[in-house]
């Protein structure tokens, strides 16, 4: 059982779509939201994904394919 903490950032056109609900329906991952915010320009959600590692990766790949940015909660780690 793996866990991964990620920040999902939604462009304006996806803010009203139930992306996280659909992720939980289509993939065997548990989504546990801790913080979120929505403005006119973007929405972001910080959550933990739990499940088997390959399934988490498939869920993340699907979200990216939908147009959602998926980043580690730490932001960009590869520094200059």
């Amino acid at each position, binding site marked *: 059982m793996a866990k*991964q*903490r990620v920040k999902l*950032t939604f462009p304006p056109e996806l803010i009203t779509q139930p992306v996280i609900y659909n992720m939980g329906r289509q993939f065997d991952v548990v989504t546990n939201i*801790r*913080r979120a*915010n929505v*403005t006119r*320009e*973007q929405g*972001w959600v*910080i*959550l*933990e994904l739990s499940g088997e590692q390959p399934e988490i990766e498939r869920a993340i790949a699907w979200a990216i394919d939908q147009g959602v*940015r*998926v*980043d*580690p*909660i*730490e*932001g*960009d*780690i*590869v*520094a*200059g």
Partner: protein
Amino acid sequence: MSRLAGLQCRECEQRYPLQPIHVCELCFGPLEVAYNYDAIRAAISRASIAAGPWTIWRYRALLPVEDEPLVETYAGCTPLVKANNLGRLWGLRNLYIKNDTVNPTFSFKDRPVSIAVTRARAFGFDTFACASTGNLAAAVAAAAARAGMRAVVFIPADLEAGKILNSAVYAPTIVAVSGHYDDVNRLCSEIAEKYRWAFANINVRPYYAEGSKTLAFEVAEQLGWRAPDHAIVPTASGSMFTKIWKGFQELYQVGLLDEPPRTRMTVAQAAGCGPIAAAFARGAREVEPVKPHTIAKSLAIGNPADGYYALRIIRETGGWAVGVSDAEIVEGIQVLARTEGIFAETAGGVAVATAKRLVDAGYIAPDDTVVIYVTGNGLKTPEAVADRLAPPVTISATMEAFEAALVRDGAGAAVVA
């Protein structure tokens, strides 16, 4: 009472003990070191600092270390250069350059890394690691060498050989990861989660980040214990920017400044990777991630972890945020070298170019005390200026050939054409 109160979440303020952790278990917000400022105020004075070593550890009382042996890399206490020539060019009488080009691995990163490696060794880690395209990798590898620890550096597989040399010389294990930047990012986050290694800017990040406060402490001491009117700071993740402001505020809190700091904090970014500057221009509260396209590689963070906090500080202090073009960056490097004899890397060029934009916009008064932070040495990015330099004049070894090359300029002095 101990100087250190523990770790605290910046979002929900939940408290944690001083462990190598960086994320709040409750809300997943970032953790920061919390201090008992009363205890520090009782133990610190201008005299006690003046009696300290000529390195960042001079300010040990305000840094997140306890009784553990310090890893002394001789970082910090870099020159604050009064830029009379550049100031005259721009019409400023109190312009300063904080010259961090001269640190042990030639960037400001030696400051936060010295704290991170000290804490990592005290926590019992035997491996010190990071993911970096440049300055952080060099600082981590060198600091690990000083600390007697193993170093592992993750780099993107397409990094140029010259950049790798700057870190490889200290003999870390270098892992070159192929894939998009985002994939490298995610992998390093997962490795930090799974292996008992100290990642400088991941699991020991709360301690690491505090090292940048020394950039404020030193400037204030070098100015005679006062904060400048303007600080122009090249900004990638926003960590250094937020910690410089925190540093000025802490000095007042512990009685080392007579007045609260009124420094206007300005973020300097490249237009090709300026998510904070873009958010500021839009009047937005949130930073939208971008894909970096700029010669300022050391500032190429498209998703800045401290972007939100940096925006808040810009607005609270009456500062500004600018994204400058690649051409302005190169001109910034060159004008600084030409007027003050300081060779900055592209990040420093970003800061100089940003300062010029503020001057041109009438944002800085002629007598304002202005500090431009130059965070890395130009030898790290020689390609930025290589094509822009005047070639040598070539002559054969005769006086006749030399004098044939002489021309007289308008002032009547001899110059070589």
